[in-house]
């Protein structure tokens, strides 16, 4: 075990995997000399050479499309999208090509590729450096969508994603990069894509979340436990697609109360699928209406500190209040 922050866990995992397997190539904007705008590939260019660490032109659709070609011909490309907000030009290549390749060829061709994208807000990134994009992609059959919230999960899930025979969209919340630290196993630890993870046990209510919001839920849960003796069970979805409904439903059946929390704007967000699944599968286990907390339905997220703060926290202690009210209801 080594303690590191989330971005270091990703860097180290990439480094270990690239040192292990020369089919892995990294491509994206500024991944080479600059080592990535978040320094994820710092030093990689010198160590692995320009053939494996490719500074691309400014063209996301091309980055993904070229990675698809590489993946169809024996390489294991890892495409870095500089900010998740800039993945949109690649939407067609991801949805129409990467995600459909295996299905449309009845299994003949596959696209073993990872797309890494730093996402999320609360980092003063304004409208185009703060977006959550998981809802768009979790809906796409043929694509796996992962968002780790801890360094250990990031390492284990990324390693599995690289070895997965199908395309994986790997979302990294920028706010977690340096803020979240934790122990990471030193070996080549693999965490399967799919299973959610109960990050905190509790009997009074279930909280389902992921990414940076998960940590805010954990903080709120701790506060409620110490100050009011309310024990919340906190489930980290970890993999949006495929979605682990079993773990979520098991917790809900146990606590009979659930709040779903996500940063993305609320309406038609990923939390809707989670809430809907509970409403279909566990309705009669519920003692209270499902509570869903998402961001305001505005383009994430304004620049001015006051406006950004409003997005992240429309009312003070929003989570603690919602969890308390639900537990007391």
């Amino acid at each position, binding site marked *: 075990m080594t303690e590191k922050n989330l971005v270091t866990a990703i860097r180290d995992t990439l480094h270990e995997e690239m040192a292990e397997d020369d089919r892995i*190539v990294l491509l994206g904007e500024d991944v080479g000399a600059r080592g990535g705008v978040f320094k994820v590939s710092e030093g990689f260019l010198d160590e692995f050479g320009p*053939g494996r660490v490719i500074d*691309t*032109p400014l*063209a996301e*659709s*091309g980055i*993904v*499309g*070229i*990675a*698809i*070609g*590489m*993946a*169809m*011909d*024996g*390489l294991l*490309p890892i495409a870095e999208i500089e900010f998740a907000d800039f993945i949109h*030009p690649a939407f*067609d*290549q991801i949805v*129409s*090509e990467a995600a*459909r*390749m*295996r*299905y*449309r*060829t*009845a*299994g*003949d*061709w*596959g696209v073993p590729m990872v797309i890494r994208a730093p996402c999320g807000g609360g980092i003063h990134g304004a409208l185009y450096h703060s977006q959550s994009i998981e809802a768009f992609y979790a809906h796409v*059959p*043929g694509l*796996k969508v992962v968002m780790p919230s801890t360094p250990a999960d990031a390492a284990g899930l990324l390693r*599995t994603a690289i*070895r*997965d*025979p*199908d395309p994986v969209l790997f979302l990294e919340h920028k706010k977690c990069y340096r803020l979240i630290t934790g122990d990471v196993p030193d070996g080549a630890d693999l965490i399967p894509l799919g299973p959610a993870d109960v990050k905190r046990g509790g009997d009074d209510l279930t909280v389902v979340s992921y990414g940076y919001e998960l940590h805010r839920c954990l903080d709120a849960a701790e506060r409620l436990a110490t100050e009011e003796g309310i024990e919340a069970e906190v489930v980290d979805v970890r993999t949006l697609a495929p979605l682990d409904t079993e773990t979520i439903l098991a917790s809900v059946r146990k606590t009979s109360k659930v709040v779903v929390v996500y940063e993305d704007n609320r309406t038609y967000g990923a939390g809707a699928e989670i809430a809907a699944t509970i409403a279909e599968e566990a309705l009669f286990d519920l003692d209270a209406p499902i509570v869903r907390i998402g961001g305001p339905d505005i383009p994430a997220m304004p620049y001015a500190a006051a406006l950004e703060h409003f997005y992240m926290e429309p009312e003070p202690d929003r989570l603690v209040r919602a969890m308390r009210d639900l537990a007391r209801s």
Partner: protein
Amino acid sequence: MSAQVTEAAPEALGLTGDDLLAMYRAMLTARLIDEAALRQNRMGRAPFVVPVSGHEGCQIGTGWALRPGTDVWVPYYRDLGIVLRAGLTPYEFFLGLFSKADDPSSGGRQMPNHWGSRRLKILSHSSPIATQVPHAAGIAYAARYRGDDVVVGCWFGEGATSEGDWHEGVNFAAIHRLPVIFVCENNEYAISVHQTKQMAVRDVATRADGYGIPGRVVDGSDVLACYAAMREAHDRARAGEGPTLVECKTYRFLPHTSDDDDKTYRSREEVEEHRHHDALIRFGALLRERGILDDAGAEELRDQLKDEIDAAIQAAWDAPDPDPQTALRHVFAEDGP
């Protein structure tokens, strides 16, 4: 500047009489499959047909410069001639036309002409136009990365060149001097939209300069000129000199697809005029001149191919349809990671 490439003597190109005969056979096969497919459509057995007629010359001409089994093919839906050259059989074509379980491209999941075969090194191609251009660049990158002696051929219509993906894919290939050849089958129309509404230049090949690669313009009804331009591009690619953009001026004799009505956007006279430049006629004449194929031989070949195609149709029609339940399969790899 983009240079005009014109007809060369077969000998100079290293093509034997047998080669020329094989090329003619492939072109004729494509033409006869087209006619047969449209008959199947009228009979109500094939809901959707994408004609090739008019493009056979530039497809077989350019396709002949690639090495089946070694090089990689990245065709688009119009490229029946290309996939025949790559090794797809008429029987396999009709399995696709009838969306049968054994359709090698997609098991009946995609529309006809949405080619793909790992075995034949034909990349799977979707409906969205130009998405295959970056794929071709990526494959060329992978091949070069491993040091494989592989050239990637990537075909598309002039309409595809308007898409951002075309620009991004060609640019990347040029920057890395990748072993890929971009072949534009310019038939003047993107469905109904005439070239003059697609670009303000006469030749797509003019764009090559802007990427720092050579551009070639060839008469698509001149099979040997197409072959010569492609051979040169193939040599460049293998020599590590990077991509070439080859533009073949061609024409689609039939509607865009069996769903299209081309009378709405082009005159019969225009179509007739182009039929006079049919590569099949022109190339047939060349074979006659050179005593490779006389009228009797041509007739015989045609009858033989028709029989083969009829047999293929029968066999394909009798092949099993996909089992409905299989619709749920292959969303992800079935063996798992």
